[in-house]
């Protein structure tokens, strides 16, 4: 299932659904990078509110996406990690190091705005 990517001003918002397969994630990685380049976005929000399980592959791929996006000069923030998913992640040892996280869409946008303002 393709992950929808919406444009909001300078930013892109990708909303992930629950039944996310590995193929979906890899597809998202390609699509996001393409979109960031095409639209010269300054920031990306990946909304995982609906994601019920974050395993090692998802965590690793999201980190890779963040790195790639950063190389294009844009910021990425992951929002909406559910309390139980966060708990399972830390128990599994998945820390999403060096990836910004925020509570929800509102916070994520605030974070991106703050970041882009500080680099102006």
């Amino acid at each position: 299932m393709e992950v929808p990517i919406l444009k909001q001003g300078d930013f892109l918002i990708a909303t992930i659904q629950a039944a996310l397969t590995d193929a979906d994630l890899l597809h998202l990685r390609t699509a996001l990078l393409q979109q960031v380049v095409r639209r010269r976005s300054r920031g990306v929000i990946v909304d995982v509110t609906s994601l019920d399980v974050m395993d090692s592959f998802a965590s690793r791929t999201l980190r890779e996406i963040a790195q790639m996006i950063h190389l294009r000069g844009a910021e990425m923030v992951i929002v909406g990690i559910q309390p139980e998913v966060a708990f399972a992640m830390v128990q599994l040892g998945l820390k999403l190091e060096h990836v910004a996280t925020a509570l929800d869409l509102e916070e994520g946008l605030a974070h991106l705005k703050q970041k882009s303002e500080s680099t102006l």
Partner: protein
Amino acid sequence: MARIETEPSSTQVAEEYSGSVEHVKPASFLLRELVAHLRDNRTQLREEWARRITEAKLLTAMTKDEIFAEATSVYDNYVEALETGTFEALQAYARNLSERIIPRGVETREVVGIVLLLRDVLARSLFAKYQADFTKLNRILDAYEPAANRIANTVAVGFVQERERIIREQQEAILELSTPVLQVRERLLILPIIGVIDPQRARQLTEQLLRGIRMNRAKVVVIDITGVAAMDATVANHLVQTVEASRLLGATVIVTGLSPEIAQTIVNIGVDLGKMNTVGDLQGGIEQAEHLLGYKVVPFAEAS
């Protein structure tokens, strides 16, 4: 799932045939006879049982009608368990019954008591019926006793398990109340931890805090462990995990009141304390939190 042994072994049959009594029947036959007897005499055996329950002053929390209604259900489930040799329906009924009567104050000894009384009432009726044929009575009891004991066990254990589940739930609720997550300012939560933390409580605190972060949309959390005397490696690990999980929800954690001993424990489990946000005391922690949130603390004189 164990089933009642209903087929006799070949040695058993041989032994039975070596006696010259004509009424040699395999155990399954006897069981069917037993069940038929219990069904035929259902009305009077049930009444006898209900009477003995009242006599023994059990189930005083329930009315006579309620006792009779439950007695009917238990009786029917009992006979069915004897007949089928499977106990799932009985287990389910026992749990259901326990759920209903525990809030009414019915105790374990009462539940065990009534089931044993039923066993007695049925056993006596068997004595009465087969008293003329001692050998047959023995064989009927051979079929009846293990099944009846298994049933008593199933019901009693079902009741106790339900009680234990309720007690656990109540304990968790008490633990939750005793360590509230406090919202003192917008976007700022304080979690003061006092006393002994075992891994179970630590896990519960983490879950509570994460839920609280989400509900209150907190950006900063101050976890104060001034009141915690000691922490073993497992719990220290939990603390570190709590900090990491909170970050995943977009919140920064400040740990205050870290004693030198606990600091050492954390370092020993391989965590770089330098990466953790720590402040000496709660007041200092709150001030730093406010700073992080962009609050400017203005002295009272200036404010007025």
